[in-house]
Every structure is written in C-alpha cells, then in structure tokens.
C-alpha cells in the first residue's frame, strides 16, 4: 500500500512558484495620475499615542461613528436619487437600482460586524465614506455610467474590509 500523498508534490510545486511578477512598466505613471491630493490635516496621528490607547477608549468610538455612518449612508442612498429623479422626471435607472441594492447590502454588512473600532482608523474610514458619497453623486448626475457601479462596489468592499480590521484592532487582535 502506498503512503504517497498526492497533494505533497503538488504543494511543493505551488510553493516553488515565483513570489514576484514584474508589475506593468507604466503602472506608477498611471497610478500617480489618479492619486487624489491629501486634504490638510489628513496626516496620521502619532503612532505611540495610537497603539497605547486603552481598549475601552477605542471601543467607545464605535457607537457614535456607526450611528453616524448608518445615517449618512441612508441619506446618500436616497437623497441623490430623489434629486435626480425630481430633476429628470424619470424613474431610477437599472444602474441606480443596482447601486441602491448594493448600498443596502453594504449597510447590512457593516451592521453585522462586531462593535468596536479604533480612533486611528477614523480618517481612512471617513475618506472612504466621502469617496462613496462622491460616487453616488456622480451616479445621480450620470445614471448611465456603468464604471461608477464598479467603483462604488470596490469602495464599499474596501470600507467593509477596513471596518473589519478596525474592529479586530479594537478588540486587541492583530490585523
């Protein structure tokens, strides 16, 4: 009877694959053209102050922030479209309906995450909220721009991921 593990050889080959691959030659040039400027005051909080914050202090941030986020998202989900609908006298487009459903899913996903976040995460979270707001506003102005839906999806996904990491940080887990 053979004791050969068929996964062993395969795993060895997978582990031997190169860990790096040449990034696109013009990658930085393309990226740098898309980087938004930093807002004044967006620089980070000193690290030593952040990492030594007591857990309880960090957890207190979550409730007001979560409530504000939920309220703001609800506003973003409704207000721009109503404005657009009023202006154009047209029903929401399919794209807008998809965005609406996505926003609701995102809101529910955020609400399902554990309570707790660390204050040092707030600038990033707020920045993503602003991004989502801007995308929604752009969709209201141009409801037939499918790339905006993808941008909104990616922004929500990143926001969820960072919210998850922030909650882990607040609970003392390494992110």
């Amino acid at each position, binding site marked *: 009877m053979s004791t*050969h593990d*068929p*996964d062993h*050889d*395969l*795993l060895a*080959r*997978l*582990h*031997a*694959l*190169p*860990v*790096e*691959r*040449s*990034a*696109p030659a013009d*990658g*930085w040039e*393309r*990226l*740098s053209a*898309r*980087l*938004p*400027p*930093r807002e004044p005051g*967006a*620089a*980070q909080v000193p*690290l030593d102050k*952040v*990492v030594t914050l007591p857990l309880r202090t960090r957890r207190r941030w979550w409730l007001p922030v979560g409530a504000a986020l939920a309220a703001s998202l609800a506003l973003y989900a409704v207000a721009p479209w109503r404005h657009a609908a009023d202006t154009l006298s047209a029903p929401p487009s399919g794209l807008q309906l*998809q965005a609406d459903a996505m926003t609701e899913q995102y809101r529910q996903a955020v609400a399902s995450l554990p309570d707790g976040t*660390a204050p*040092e*995460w*707030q*600038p*990033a*979270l707020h*920045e*993503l909220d602003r*991004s989502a707001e801007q995308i929604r506003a752009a969709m209201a102005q141009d409801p037939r721009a499918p790339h905006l*839906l*993808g941008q909104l*999806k*990616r*922004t929500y*996904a*990143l926001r969820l*991921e*960072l919210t*998850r990491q*922030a909650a882990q*940080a607040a609970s003392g887990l*390494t*992110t």
Partner: protein
Amino acid sequence: MLDTTMPAPPAANDVVDETALVRAAAAGDTAAYEQLYRQHAPRVFATLWRLCGGQQARAEDALQEAFLQAWKALPGFRFESSLSTWLHRLGVNAALMELRGRAAGHDHDSLDDVDGGLPEMAVHDGCAGTERDLERALATLPPRARAVLVLHDIEGWKHHEIAGQLQMAVGSSKAQLHRARGLLRARLGDMT
C-alpha cells in the same frame, strides 16, 4: 495571516525606512508612495495575476485599484500588520471585486462562474512539469476554485479567512480546495 508567504523579515533599517515612507506617504508625499509601490507591487501583482487567471489587463486593473485604495486608506494604517500583508489584502480584495464585477457582464471568468466554462488547455506535452505549465494549468481552473487554491496553497490563508473574503462557508472553501487540487493534478497529467 499570510505569514507563510510573507517575505523574510526585513532588516531593522528597512523597517525604519518603510515606516518613514508610510508616514510621509500618509502625509501626501507621492515620491514616498512611489517607493512603496515599486517595492511591493511585484509581489502583490504576482498574486493578482494568478487570481485573475493570468489575464494581464485584469490583473493590472486590480493592482491599480489596490494601490489607489491603499493611498486613500494609508493615513489609517497603524502597523498592526505588516504593510506587505495589508497591501496583499487590499489587492486580493480588488481582484475578487474585479472578478465579481464580471458576473454582471456575463464574463466567462467571473467568480460566479461554474465549472466547464473555460477551455481545457493541453498541458500534457513534453514540457509538462515546468513552472510555466503549472501557471497555465492554474489559469484553467474555475475562478472560485482557483481563488481558493491560490489563497490557501500559495498565499497561506486559512479557510476561515478565505470564506470571509469569498463570502462562502468554511466547508465550501475546503470543498473548493479539494476540487481545485484534483482538477489541477488532472490537468497536469499527474494522476498519482
């Protein structure tokens, strides 16, 4: 997480330098961010390229998106994980979103795809066993199975991490991994 695939621990000076670069970039220094990009992009790109089934354009889009989001989120980065791990997370997320986004357009390589949509690639030739053939065989796997295999067997993620990222049950992640390995062995002609 990702501990099994992270590069060797950097020297102390490198850590200090990277910390300084991160802080400078967080404050708006694009030159510092360029250094971080050039340092980390090749490793992130290797992962995204595999997740995207070797499709260069899609992997490039995901890389761009990941580093754009990283720039936005960098002021919140607090070194509770390594920068490399954090960037990997963002990159994987961008790649998965890219694949999910294809579902709306009925792309054959979307994450929501099922088996059999991809053409079989002949890898049972005289060159079988090479690194290139392994990469090619990986690219032929169904997208979801491929993602699980890449994240688990190459990137070192745990099943619960993969399940969270791919929005599936842990059992499904394990099943997809088993399936992916079997398909990969078959496509490589390794029927042992």
